[in-house]
């Protein structure tokens, strides 16, 4: 048993760490989010050169054949730099759907172009009424001879303004909340019938509302089986959930370490504020929350993610537990920074904001607690012994 990285994984970590250190220092990051586009396309090219865009894809498609650990390594370091380029939405989530569901022709065409950085897909799934339910889909696709006509509205699609293509979930059959009848479509973002309303998010990432009006899509652009995509969506969202948990752990480390340093340096009443036991114990509790968050992430990464139940449990356990750690570490980081914590100018608030928004993405603490509870409390044996509980 070990939690060590392989030699390749250590190289990968060093590579992403140096990217964040050399090409993504705090000032650079601030200037990137202030541009009109809200990201830097050159960085995407750099990711392609470094091989990062191929991390999760199969080797026979030109990828690195990476596993959950490799994705964790990239996401954790991106978290430490608050990297805004849409790596998770495009490479992990949309890329994962295409790998999972694409026909041989689709994969041969698309995946090499994703890895080279020439195409960026993002997945438009959420709708105003769906909240975190991936199966709640109103957006409709109706057959008209050889084409589908799609109408609907997709909410808060991360990275859509930076994408060349979309994957849209639409209902080809069933009721609004039915798990069957959901079909995925591959769409050129410049297609007639697609209108994007782009906006910055509170944490300075970018997202879009996507209005779909009489969009015509040929049958060949269906991804996966007609009306049978829900399970694949759930699977890829679970894996993406673990990816953003990794990002969160990177962010929590920055929040914890920076707060530690700040409290050592900040002097009041003639001494470092970290000399006060009230502050010390808070810092210790932040450290414990960070370690617990990291541990549950390791649990998720090393779980048997190819087993559906294990994967669901792992994703929800990690997201729920890390969501709690985000609130505790984040809010206390701000509190202990005092006035410096609440200003835009100092970096700590930006880490807090990103972590908090990750807390919502793909379902918040309540959502995942409920899901975890349902997954773990179904098969309880009835009590058959009478010797009580032995706790000592």
């Amino acid at each position, binding site marked *: *048993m*070990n*939690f*060590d*990285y392989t030699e390749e994984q250590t190289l990968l970590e060093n590579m992403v760490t140096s990217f964040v250190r050399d090409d993504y220092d705090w000032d650079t990051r601030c200037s990137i989010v202030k541009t009109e586009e809200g990201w830097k396309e050159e960085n995407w090219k750099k990711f392609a050169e470094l091989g990062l865009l191929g991390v999760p894809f199969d080797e026979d498609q030109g990828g690195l054949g990476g596993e959950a*650990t490799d994705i964790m390594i990239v996401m954790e370091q991106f978290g430490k730099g608050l990297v805004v380029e849409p790596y998770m939405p495009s490479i992990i989530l949309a890329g994962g759907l295409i790998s999972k569901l694409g026909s041989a022709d689709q994969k041969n065409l698309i995946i090499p172009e994703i890895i080279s950085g020439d195409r960026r897909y993002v997945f438009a799934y959420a709708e105003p009424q769906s909240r975190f339910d991936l199966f709640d889909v109103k957006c409709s696709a109706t057959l008209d001879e050889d084409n589908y006509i799609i109408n609907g509205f997709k909410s808060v699609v991360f990275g859509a303004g930076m994408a060349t293509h979309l994957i849209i979930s639409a209902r080809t059959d069933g009721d609004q909340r039915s798990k069957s009848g959901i079909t995925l479509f591959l769409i050129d973002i410049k297609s007639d019938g697609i209108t994007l309303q782009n906006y910055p998010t509170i944490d300075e990432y970018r997202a879009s509302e996507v209005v779909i009006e009489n969009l015509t899509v040929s049958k060949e652009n269906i991804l996966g089986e007609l009306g049978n995509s829900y399970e694949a969506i759930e699977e890829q969202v679970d894996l993406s959930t673990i990816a953003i948990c990794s990002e969160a752990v990177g962010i929590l480390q920055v929040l914890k370490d920076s707060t*530690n340093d700040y*409290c*050592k340096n900040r002097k009041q009443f003639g001494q470092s504020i*970290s*000399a006060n*036991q009230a502050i*010390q*114990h808070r*810092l*210790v*509790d932040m*450290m*414990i929350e960070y*370690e*617990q*968050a*990291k*541990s*549950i992430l*390791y*649990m998720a*990464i*090393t779980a048997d993610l190819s087993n559906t139940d294990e994967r669901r449990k792992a994703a929800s*356990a990690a997201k*729920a*537990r890390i969501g709690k750690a985000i609130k505790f570490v984040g809010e206390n980081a701000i509190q202990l920074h005092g006035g410096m914590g609440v200003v835009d100018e100092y970096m700590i608030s930006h880490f807090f904001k990103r972590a908090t928004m990750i807390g919502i993405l793909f379902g918040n603490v309540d959502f995942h*607690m*409920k899901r*975890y*509870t349902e997954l*773990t*409390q179904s098969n*309880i*044996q*009835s*009590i058959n012994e*009478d*010797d*009580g*509980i*032995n*706790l*000592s």
Partner: protein
Amino acid sequence: MDTAFSSEDLKFQSDVREFISNNYPKELKDSIGTKRKTGKELSRGDLMSWHKILGKHNGWSAPGWPKQYGGAEFTPTQKYIFEQECARAECQYIMPFGVNMVGPVIYTFGNDEQKAKYLPGILSGDVFWCQGYSEPGSGSDLASLKTSAVKEGDHYIVNGQKTWTTLAQHADWIFCLVRTNPDAEKPQQGISFLLIDMKTPGITVRPIKLMDGSHEVNETWFDNVKVPVENLIGQENMGWTYAKFLLAHERSGIAGVARSKKALERIKQIASAEMSYGEPLIQDPAFKSKIANAELELSSLEYTELRTLAKDSAGKGPGPESSLLKIKGTDIQQMVTELAMEAVGYYANPHLGTTLSNEYVGPDYATNLSGSYFNFRKASIYGGSNEIQRNIIAKMVLGL
């Protein structure tokens, strides 16, 4: 990253499981079960008989001891597996005072005569040890202890009072921190580590009843107790070094993950038998979310322990991180005892579930769950209170 056990570890796991199932005495299980239900104190035999069985099997009573002293010298992973399997089978746990506390001090700092005299009895479980550290005025501030040992010829004369002496009512020997130099510059510098035979004239043990009614701890008084000088461990006035060594050993394994897991499983069973709003309690959203919360805390802690273990196997620990295991482990034990009490509703009330004419009341599984809740408030206080553990992390890990 690889959390799978190696094939050797899996073989070891099945060996342990088989050994327990063939050798853990059914009478012991029954005896302990009945006593817990009726609130009777466990006897010395209940506490030690499993230890004695393990002591005859390749040193399994002392999983961490080196082979040269008769221990099993398990790897950290084997230790983890062994604990897990014992918890799974709900075996009586091994008293820590001999095996985990004084034993390692003796084989690390004691001389050859001391090793030969004391280690075999600890290993076999024939000699019962207790711990003489805390005093009425010295809890978390242990170094302020006052019990004195004055050298007169080939004896020390010991006077003073120890408290919270767990299970001293059964003990043959006590290991004590005593003050041999009252004039030392710092309080830590005048302390020595003495082994004392509990039969020595001048020792009085008085029970302290805890709030659940149990008798686990005692006051131990020393009135001109004569202790031979050869019972001193290491050097005079160096006892603090040995004490700190011992405390680090005491904290490892304190997380109790496997036992808490087992208890949570049982609580879920209870909650499926109990009713609330006309449905099994386990269906109640508020209750089931508390269970899920405890499970998540426990999963995280399990991986924190595994991470510590992996570091330990690589020869890098355990360091002050064991304080984290103590804090979270005892938090969870308290969470679990509270949930168990909560699960049985009104039947938390009857003391030990018996009437004045000794008839049982309420469901069997409800007996003494409130007692456990009250009893386990001790967990965040003993072994260095959780506030002291935070001080240790602040200083040793965070550099504050």
